[in-house]
């Protein structure tokens, strides 16, 4: 299922670099057999889909009952659409916050609740540094760790991501905050 070919990007494209690193970090964590939780992404998809549907309703209604009879429906649709856009912005700023992975570490015995791992990343525009933040929520405790690396440390001159170099970095970060309860 997973493509094992190394990721290659245009080395001057900062956005592609960040996305490639996000994808690699995601792969590293999911290789530990954690289950990905799509709740965060799905909520965003639902908000966006609703907005598009509202726009479609407006389009269709105006087509069937030409302006000005469609005025009330159009006002409703336009207001709803911009409210949804506002909601999406709030959601992105307060809920999503650069998080690109939420994964559940299932208890092998099945008695204890899942441990939730969260990965978030930031990269300042025109800056070569990539910052990865791992958060683990274990019952009521929450621990965070992060590192900042220059992209030059994990990409070679052709723009190929060196997963063998990057994965240990991610694992190191993961292991620094993993729960001490499990057998060492």
């Amino acid at each position, binding site marked *: 299922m997973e493509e094992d070919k190394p990721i290659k990007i245009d080395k001057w494209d900062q*956005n592609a670099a960040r996305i490639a690193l996000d994808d690699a970090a995601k792969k590293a964590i999911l290789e530990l057999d954690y289950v990905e939780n*799509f709740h965060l992404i799905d909520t965003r*998809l639902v908000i966006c889909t609703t907005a598009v549907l509202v726009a479609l309703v407006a389009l269709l209604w105006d087509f069937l009952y030409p302006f000005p009879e469609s005025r009330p429906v159009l006002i409703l649709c336009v207001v709803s659409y911009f409210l949804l*856009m506002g909601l999406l912005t709030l959601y992105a700023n307060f809920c999503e916050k650069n998080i690109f992975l939420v994964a559940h570490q299932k208890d092998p015995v099945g008695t204890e609740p899942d441990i939730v791992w969260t990965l978030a990343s930031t990269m300042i525009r025109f800056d070569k540094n990539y910052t990865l933040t791992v958060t683990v929520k274990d019952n009521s405790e929450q621990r965070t760790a992060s590192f900042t690396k220059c992209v030059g440390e994990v990409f070679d001159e052709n723009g190929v991501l060196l997963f063998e170099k990057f994965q240990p970095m991610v694992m190191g970060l993961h292991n620094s905050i993993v729960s001490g309860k499990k057998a060492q």
Partner: protein
Amino acid sequence: MDIFSDLRRLNKRQVYFQVLNFAMIISSALMIWKGLMVTTGSESPIVVVLSGSMEPAFYRGDLLFLTNYRADPVRAGEIVVFKIEGREIPIVHRVIKLHEKADGKVKFLTKGDNNEVDDRGLYKPGQLWVERDHVVGRARGFVPYVGIVTILMNDYPKLKYAVLGLLGLFVLIHRE
């Protein structure tokens, strides 16, 4: 190619998200247009001047902003945009004569500033006056030259499809 390897890494959700992104851009443009329609009261709040019949006031390619408030009466001397029954394209000309009844019903005659004769030749056979219902709106502001893009896209439809196609493709492929 690098672009396609990037795309192949997308899972189902991310593919849907790319498509949604594209749909949202179109929806936003649509909603802004409908919003303008509702706030100006005009079914076509922005029009492009297509002919030189209103020179030197408006030239071909100028973009006009219209409002169509029922409360504002049409007056002689104002520039109105109206549609003739059976014709899709609205006409941008000046009102030169106006008859008004006590109940507010108006009939007016239009003429392009740069034309020799009034518009009766353009009206529907048998129609001598333009009425309030034919009016799309009154010109309230304009931006010169910008509309040339629309004229070009209409004269060369292939250009329109090429530009829109490329923009669409770019949005679909570009992540975040």
